[in-house]
């Protein structure tokens, strides 16, 4: 009956998102008086697995199988469904990231379980099971009732605070039955940047728009992000123009992020841009136009020329 949470690992390590998921699962388990079981797929050291206990997992099921070394959504959904059945889980929590979006819908059909996707708060109600869900790209929220016996929730990254726990988790090794011939996708090449802070993981994001005027003006923006330990982002036209890499574009058609601090520099605040950043805890706008719509979404604003303001901010942080 435990709440099952799928905790993805990155080269054998968990990250803040994994602990957010476990914290969230622990919150749900408290509502229905059960415990949390985490399922991990792939080789993860025991000490690392135990970390999940620090956020409320009482049991960790560690699945290893050579046929699961690459993400195949069909095979992964199969394994998680198998573990869910074994545990009798009625609620399954998955991240609303690329991996979660690949697995959750398949799991849904397999278990005939309704999905509440992109949740950021604990369920509003246990019976009927009701979650609060972002819709219309952040322009509305919906109360969604999940009517099926089993429920799947996908949690938005950076939206749920970590809740430390004093649980000591038990670890169970589980050999999944995955026949290699059923894995239909094959990964033939991987290109990965290492050592760089991922935009989706960053607590602080400094983002530039067309108001930055030229790709040559970015150095104070990048410096500010570095000094604050944050990541850099941009609006769509900026990445379309090739001023900044495509991976930095936030918004409805780019990345959807929810950092603690989002600084929009020379960004007008079009609804499609806001769709990607409106869940940020604090938004700061720096814009030369006092009527720019971005100020309606910002808690702090500076009306001024970004190219003059940025170097001053860099100076202030340095001191």
């Amino acid at each position, binding site marked *: 009956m435990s709440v099952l949470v799928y905790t993805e690992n990155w080269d054998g390590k968990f990250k803040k998102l994994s602990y957010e998921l476990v914290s969230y699962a622990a919150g749900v388990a408290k509502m229905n008086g059960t415990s949390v079981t985490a399922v991990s797929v792939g080789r993860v050291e025991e000490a690392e697995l135990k970390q999940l206990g620090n956020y409320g997992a009482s049991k960790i099921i560690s699945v290893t199988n050579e046929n699961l070394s690459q993400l*195949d*959504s069909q095979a992964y959904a199969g394994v998680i469904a198998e573990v869910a059945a074994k545990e009798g889980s009625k609620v399954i929590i998955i991240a*609303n*990231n*690329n991996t979660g*979006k*690949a*697995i959750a*819908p*398949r799991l*849904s*059909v397999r278990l*005939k379980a*309704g*999905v509440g*996707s*992109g949740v950021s708060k604990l369920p509003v109600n246990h019976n009927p099971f009701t979650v609060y869900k972002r*819709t*219309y*790209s952040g322009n*509305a*929220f*919906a*109360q*969604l*009732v999940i*009517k099926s016996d089993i429920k799947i929730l996908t949690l938005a990254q950076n939206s749920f605070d970590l809740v430390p726990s004093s649980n000591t988790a038990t670890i169970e090794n589980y050999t999944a039955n995955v026949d290699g011939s059923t894995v*239909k*996708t*094959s*990964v*033939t*090449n*991987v*290109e*990965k*940047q290492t050592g*760089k802070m991922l935009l989706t993981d960053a607590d602080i994001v400094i983002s530039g728009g067309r108001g930055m005027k030229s790709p040559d003006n970015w150095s104070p923006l990048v410096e500010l992000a570095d000094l*604050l330990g944050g990541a850099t982002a941009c609006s769509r036209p900026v990445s379309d123009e090739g001023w900044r890499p*495509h991976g930095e*574009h936030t918004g*409805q*058609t780019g990345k959807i992020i929810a950092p*603690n*601090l989002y600084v929009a520099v020379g960004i007008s605040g*079009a*609804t499609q841009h806001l*769709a990607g950043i409106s869940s940020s805890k604090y938004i700061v706008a720096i814009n030369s136009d006092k009527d720019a719509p971005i100020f*309606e*979404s*910002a*808690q*702090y*604003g*500076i*009306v*001024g020329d970004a190219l*003059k303001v940025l170097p001053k901010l860099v*100076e*202030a942080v340095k001191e």
Partner: protein
Amino acid sequence: MKILVCISNVPDTTTKIKFAAGNTSIDTAGIQWVINPWDELSLTRALELKDDTSNGIKSVTVIHVGPAASETTIRKALAIGADDAVRVNAEPLDAYYTAAQIAEVVKKEQFDVVFCGIESSDFNGSTVGGMVAEFLGVPSVSAVSGIKFENGQAVLTREIDGGKETVTVSAPCVAIVQKGIAKEPRIAAMRGIMMARSKPVKVFEPVAVEPLTQVVEFEKPAPRAACKYIDAENPRQLIELLQNEAKVI
């Protein structure tokens, strides 16, 4: 090879969302309906693939689950260049229901590759594509930012944290697409608009499926506090506020 592109019909992305009485549905008065941005791009990519005759693509069909009122959006897709269309005559009650309807049509009409968008801009579910694949028991690849065909296989670029992978898969399969799949959406030319009128739209009645979820109430997002302005000559004050008031740095 036959390609099927799933099309969802959504309010134009600049729409100010208002709710109807009781807040259980949105007020559709004055809304401009458009093809979901991802679906517009996946249709564009499907047509590009068909244009290259070496891919041997016989047809690009669009499918939409929705009432007769959404036929305008289907005609738009035909005007852009889809060969024909299928409409399942039903309200898309939830993702599970919608995906079940699409899967049923794929079983009947035998498509090799199904394109779905990563997210509809109205429900923001990110689930229909994966569900279609599971109903059909075929592989799906998600977060796809590129697709081509080589030696009878689909070669896809998949976005991962901090990078990308190349994934190969044989048809039949479902590609769930996002940014990068095509550069700019193809737009309908006059000729396309004329031709769209005579292109076939098959209408299927839905199969009986119980939806698993239901929206019971809509709410507006909580309003943010009014913006606090800081003098452009003294940005230092912003840093102080972020440190001491917001406590985010």
